[in-house]
């Protein structure tokens, strides 16, 4: 039994790996292609020439100003995707990313406007503030789930609504907004101090936000935690099978709370690139819906830090390039939303199909290899 086994081992391992990669890439590539086809049909039906539209998007995407804009936006999307993905890895559906990042950035803007430390301290202070607030807000959903059995889907949706109300409650003159009489209708915090500004890189295509470094750091830490730490193993085990994790000694209650807090902490960072490099204050300019884009990005990126990077770039590219569609040729910009939506639907279906196929295929392969080994062993005995 042993000799054929050891001989078959390296070959088997290699083949399984290449196949794994092919299977892994098949789903997103197919999903993107399918959504391109759907959008092309939609455009053609509405009497527009579809390939011209794709050409407009592509040529803007390859231009340097388009690339810088794409990268800046992808930074935000990446953080949103990572926040959602961290919870997904635990089988938790954190729909509350939206509320968590709004509160995070509000508090960061307030602290930034009130405190003026040297940049070395000020920047980390704002990052920590945003993460703490986001994490604490998310922990409410975690605690409710663990101690009261409330589904995190329900509680985070509710907390989103509550977060909006809390923002409204705090963002009044005399609380977080300055009490300066009624100079404008727009209510917003004071601008953050100059030391709170994050560094930027000037390129030929415009200003590249330095926050991309933070996004990369989050991705690296995410990957490291998942694959190299005991905590990450417990997290993945719980995500794969809660019952097996419980039996193996994982404290599932604590894991639920911890991962909600971490997810909320990452969510807290989402609003900071905009705050610290572009707008410098919190007001009506805050972009809603980033939490939901994060969920789409995480789904497309298969909850893996590297996958999310690609899907964040793709979503950012679609958004940025989509702005050119009405300008060049009068295409509706909404086609981009259609494309993003169809990608997500296709990819969810495709992943499940690929997952089942892969599992079945491996079972068959293992069976076939074992049968071959058994046959070989029998021959040896006979000889």
């Amino acid at each position, binding site marked *: 039994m*042993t000799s054929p086994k050891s001989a078959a081992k390296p070959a088997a391992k290699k083949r399984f790996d290449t196949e794994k990669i092919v299977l892994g890439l098949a789903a997103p590539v197919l999903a993107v292609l399918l959504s391109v086809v759907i959008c092309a049909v939609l455009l053609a039906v509405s009497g527009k020439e579809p390939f011209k539209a794709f050409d407009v998007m592509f040529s803007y995407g390859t231009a340097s100003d388009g690339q810088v804009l794409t990268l800046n936006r992808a930074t935000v999307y990446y953080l949103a995707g990572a926040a959602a993905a961290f919870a997904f890895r635990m089988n938790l559906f954190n729909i509350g990313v939206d509320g968590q990042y709004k509160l995070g950035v509000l508090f960061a803007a307030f602290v930034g406007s009130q405190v003026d430390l040297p940049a070395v301290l000020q920047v980390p202070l704002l990052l920590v503030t945003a993460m703490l607030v986001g994490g604490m807000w998310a922990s409410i959903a975690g605690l409710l789930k663990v101690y009261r059995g409330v589904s995190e889907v329900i509680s985070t949706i509710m907390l989103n609504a509550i977060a909006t109300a809390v923002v409204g409650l705090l963002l009044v003159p005399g609380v977080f907004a300055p009490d300066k009489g009624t100079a404008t209708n727009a209510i917003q915090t004071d601008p953050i101090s100059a030391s709170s500004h994050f560094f930027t890189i000037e390129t030929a295509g415009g200003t590249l936000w330095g926050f991309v470094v933070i996004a990369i750091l989050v991705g690296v830490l995410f990957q490291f935690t998942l*694959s190299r730490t005991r905590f990450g193993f417990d997290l993945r085990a719980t995500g794969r*099978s809660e019952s097996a994790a419980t039996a*193996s*000694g994982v404290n599932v209650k604590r894991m639920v709370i911890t991962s909600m807090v971490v997810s909320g902490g990452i969510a807290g960072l989402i609003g900071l690139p905009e705050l610290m490099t572009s707008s410098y204050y919190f007001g009506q300019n805050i972009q809603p819906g980033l939490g939901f884009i994060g969920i789409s990005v995480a789904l497309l990126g298969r909850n893996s830090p590297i996958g999310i990077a690609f899907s964040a770039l793709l979503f950012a590219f679609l958004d940025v390039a989509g702005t050119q569609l009405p300008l060049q040729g009068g295409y509706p910009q909404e086609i981009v939303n259609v494309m993003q939506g169809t990608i997500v639907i296709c990819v969810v279906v495709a992943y499940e199909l690929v997952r089942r196929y892969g599992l079945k295929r491996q079972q068959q392969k293992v*069976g*076939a290899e074992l049968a071959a080994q058994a046959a070989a062993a029998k021959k040896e005995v006979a000889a």
Partner: protein
Amino acid sequence: MIDTASGRGPAGCARARHRASSVPPSLLQRNDAPCDHQEIAITASEPAPTPTGGNPSAGTATPAVELRGITKRFPGVVANHDIDITVAPGTVHALMGENGAGKSTLMKILYGMQKPDEGTIAVNGEQVEFNTPGDAIARGIGMVHQHFMLADYLTVWENVVLGGEKLYGIGAKAKAKIREISDQYGLGIRPDAMVEDLGVADRQRVEILKVLYRGARILILDEPTAVLVPQEVDALFANLRDLKSEGVTVIFISHKLHEVLSVADAISVIRRGTTVGDADPRTVTARQLAELMVGAELPSPESRESTVTETEMLRVDTLRIAKADAEGIERVVLDDVSLRIRKGEILGIAGVEGNGQAELVEAIMGMLPLDGGVVTLDGVDLTGTLTRARREAGIGYIPEDRHKHGLLLEAPLWENRMLGHVTESPNSKGMLLDPAGARKDTRRIVEEYDVRTPGIEVTAASLSGGNQQKLIIGREMSHRPKLLIASHPTRGVDVGAQAQIWEQIRVAQREGLAVLLISADLDELIGLSDTIRVIYRGRLVADADPATVTAEDLGTAMTGAAAGHIESAPEAVAEFQAIVAEGTEAESTDDTATDAQAGE
């Protein structure tokens, strides 16, 4: 006499190996012979009793179901091999065999859930081919699954009609039909009751009614008694007799000897995926059946010396757990349970499933909160600690349901090797994982415990049940546990792996391991344990010495009929052990993997 109605293969061949019950089993050839059936039927009369009413056909008529040469292969294993079964109409036909023998696969084939690779199925004399359960239903075959498929928040009536709306509509006509069937077969079902308010036995009757409503005349019951208490079993059997008298054919899957003997008209035994014999329940004894079912793989109780020491390893005192059930009534699942296991001792817990075994295990593992009691391991009080701390303190755990509690099915083998021991070497160093160490150790486990796999990067789901179990045992043993909790360690495992698993437990026992063994297989319990306790409705009601007890007497105690210290008559014990021992010598272990779990 030979079972003439079965119409089975060359009669001379069968007669040649026909035997009286006094012939030792070792003298008989088994499935390695050219003709692989042995008959234990001794009566001269018709094997199938003539139906008492409803069905015009007599025992000599066309069989209701005839399976010929059924073979089903899953990747790498053969789940069913050349199975022949003939079921006479209007009878209760029991299909017996251990867990993993291939009963379920066979029934899935008969019910159209899986297609056989070879062989033919004939229903009422007509050759049929089933592609979906729908085809089987159209032919009048219905199946009641072990796990009920009912919607809790619908009434009985709605559940029955669901999916069968075309038959009698969904209104008064359907309700009248339900009442009619219920009265006809004495099922006593109220169509307007909510399913969530029903007990297990009632739900089972609803399932049976559901099948009858769809016109089934051939009923497959998959281990129907596993979830029932003895009184409910009696009631079910009364229902089955009613069904029979109305001409319905019942195929009854079970591995419980006394139940089969009390209800069946004919018995077919399956072992290692093939039919090894038919028996007439009126003449066959439980012992003969057990011997047919288990074959030669029983470990012999006398072939070893006691390794029990005086050092106490596990001490459980007055454990109590009460759970509120669906109706809010508090049900005591563990009541005043106290036990001790010494170093080198295997304590077996016997009991019908659902009498508190699972809760006892989970209480010791720290997975269930206690309402009272103390758990002490090697002098350390573990009562207030979490599962991980208990594992680190030296408890190894082979869970009852390995897919649910023992493995991450979609993770590679080496990650599964970490599961449950992620805080220990070689899986981690400090807070960081050590994948290289875990991989290396997984290779060692694969080698030492003969886990048949092409590599350690494949997912656990792609291994067969026996190999998954060997991996789990290898993992748990690798951390030198002080106490091993083995819940049904050989359930759904092929026979080759079974013998290995037993041997591994024995070896560890010799080195001073204390084992808490829970098993539904009484022969396994008697063969392995040093002491046996019987659990019944959450209480340890009886104890026995495996050297002086038979499976039959233990089975009696499991139904709550006996308490205190059980001791069987010495002659019965001697006979039981003799059969077991002879069986062991007579047959060499065949390496054919017959594992029904593969491919799942």
